[in-house]
């Protein structure tokens, strides 16, 4: 073991033509952590992941997995990944595919464990082209963990899933990470990061803008929400109250984002608008929206 760190990025940048997709990223992930790479579309999540896996070369900086190059880590069977927008190849059964992938790695997961963790019982004999969308995602997850990799990388694994499949998927992921494996997943769903990661790394415009536990990232933003019943004449003018940075109307309530809830409440009282008030601390989603704005 050359290093206790699973992933190390030092000053990594990557451009496509004039567009700087990833800009000077430093990131160290110790073994055993489950990390969410959170960011809006186009933030540089997939580029970061492709460089992490050695699929794209970095323009500048150094990328290491377990103290060596990504290619060497892959060759040693320490990496598994679920890539975005890959399709399963036709004319092979689930069982054949998984047997093939297991055979490539030095210490694969036993087949029974693999089928159980990925929730694939009953699908072993099915051809890959005959799977439903949700089943195909489960098979791709199984391909990623079949070799029992020390580092599991998942690029927006739940992008095309419905709510139920998503919940089952994260349960499978947690079963794998509980066994001491390092997991990095990217997502643009804040609640997935909040529920399934030990650590959240927020990326926007190719730069890391926050890094810490979900609670820490939540605190990184001091924004709070003041919610009141929607005034009879609508939400017009609320955004001009002192201290209000954003107004959102949902149903019959108005949600005011602010860093000075006291001032906002006073202003609402003065205008006679204080009905059914509720003041809440920032949710991770609010912090995320503030950070990536």
């Amino acid at each position, binding site marked *: 073991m050359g290093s206790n760190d699973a992933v190390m990025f030092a000053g990594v940048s990557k451009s496509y033509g004039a567009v700087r997709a990833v800009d000077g990223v430093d990131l160290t992930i110790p073994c055993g952590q489950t990390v969410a790479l959170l960011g809006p579309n186009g933030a540089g999540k997939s580029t970061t992941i492709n460089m992490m*896996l*050695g*699929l*794209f*070369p970095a323009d500048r900086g150094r990328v290491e997995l377990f103290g060596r190059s990504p290619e060497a880590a*892959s*060759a*040693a*069977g320490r*990496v*598994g*990944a679920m*890539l975005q*927008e*890959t*399709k*399963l*190849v*036709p*004319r*092979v059964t689930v069982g*054949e*595919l998984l*047997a*093939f*992938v297991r*055979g*490539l*790695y*030095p210490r694969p997961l036993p087949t029974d464990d693999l089928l159980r963790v990925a929730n694939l019982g009953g699908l072993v004999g099915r051809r890959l082209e005959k799977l439903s969308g949700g089943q195909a995602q489960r098979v791709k997850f199984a*391909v990623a963990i079949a*070799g029992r990799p020390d580092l599991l990388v998942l690029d927006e694994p739940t992008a095309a899933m419905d709510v139920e499949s998503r919940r089952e998927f994260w349960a499978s992921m947690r079963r794998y990470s509980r066994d001491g494996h390092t997991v990095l997943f990217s997502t643009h769903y804040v609640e997935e990061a909040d529920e399934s990661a030990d650590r959240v790394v927020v990326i926007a415009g190719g730069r890391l803008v926050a890094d810490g536990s979900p609670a820490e990232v939540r605190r990184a933003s001091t924004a709070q929400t003041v919610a009141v019943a929607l005034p009879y004449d609508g939400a017009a003018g609320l955004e001009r109250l002192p201290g209000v940075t954003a107004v959102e109307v949902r149903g019959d309530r108005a949600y005011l984002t602010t860093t000075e809830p006291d001032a906002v409440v006073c202003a609402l009282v003065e205008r006679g608008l204080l009905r059914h008030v509720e003041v809440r601390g920032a949710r991770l989603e609010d912090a995320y929206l503030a950070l990536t704005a």
Partner: protein
Amino acid sequence: MSGYLSIELRRLLRSPGYLMSSLAMPLVMYLVITNLYGGSGAARHDTAIYLMVSMAGFGAVGAALTNGLSVVADRSAGWLRQLRITPLSAGRVVVIRGLTGMLAALPAILAVCVVGGLINGVRLPLDHWFAVVALLWLGTAPFALLGLGIGYLVSTQAAQPVTMLLNLSMSILGGLWMPATVFPATLRAVSRFVPTSGYAEISRRIAFDGLPHATDIAVLLAWFVVFAGLATVAYRRAGRRTT
């Protein structure tokens, strides 16, 4: 390593359309041309042998090249990128995918030779039969590698027309459809250096009880080296693109 070969072979055997289509055209052409221009007696036997090697080679080259189109499909599905993050090395992927292309060529060679022996009355000593089939098969290696080069390099839309164009031009210029001896002098000189020419000529010489020309062997080996280099470079590039 054997796991990858076995999964690719299963995929090949489960695409009967691909294997059948590699047989249909050479078999039909073989039967039609021998019966139209065959003549009779010894001349007919010579024509049947000559065309058997040509048409077996034509079918085999087509199948080996067409293997590249399934590589294009794998590439656009992201399967190549998935393989790249496993311990399977780039060199092995290229070798095994090339071997799959060669195995895809075998049915065409066997079918045309069986038709030659059973229907067109070709009679060869057993060791000649064996040498002709073996050399026709081994000689598909450069074409399988060229197919891979196309599969790893050319865009999804262009792959099919590029493959077809190469297949037809090499078959015609290399003298598989008609003997190069009917070509004008300049074309005949060029034909000698087209990979299909040496490929078929090596087996033809043996079928007619001779020994292969050193030039034909050298030309085919040179193409093997060129196409192996092309396939390797193309594979390295392919991992960085998705379509």
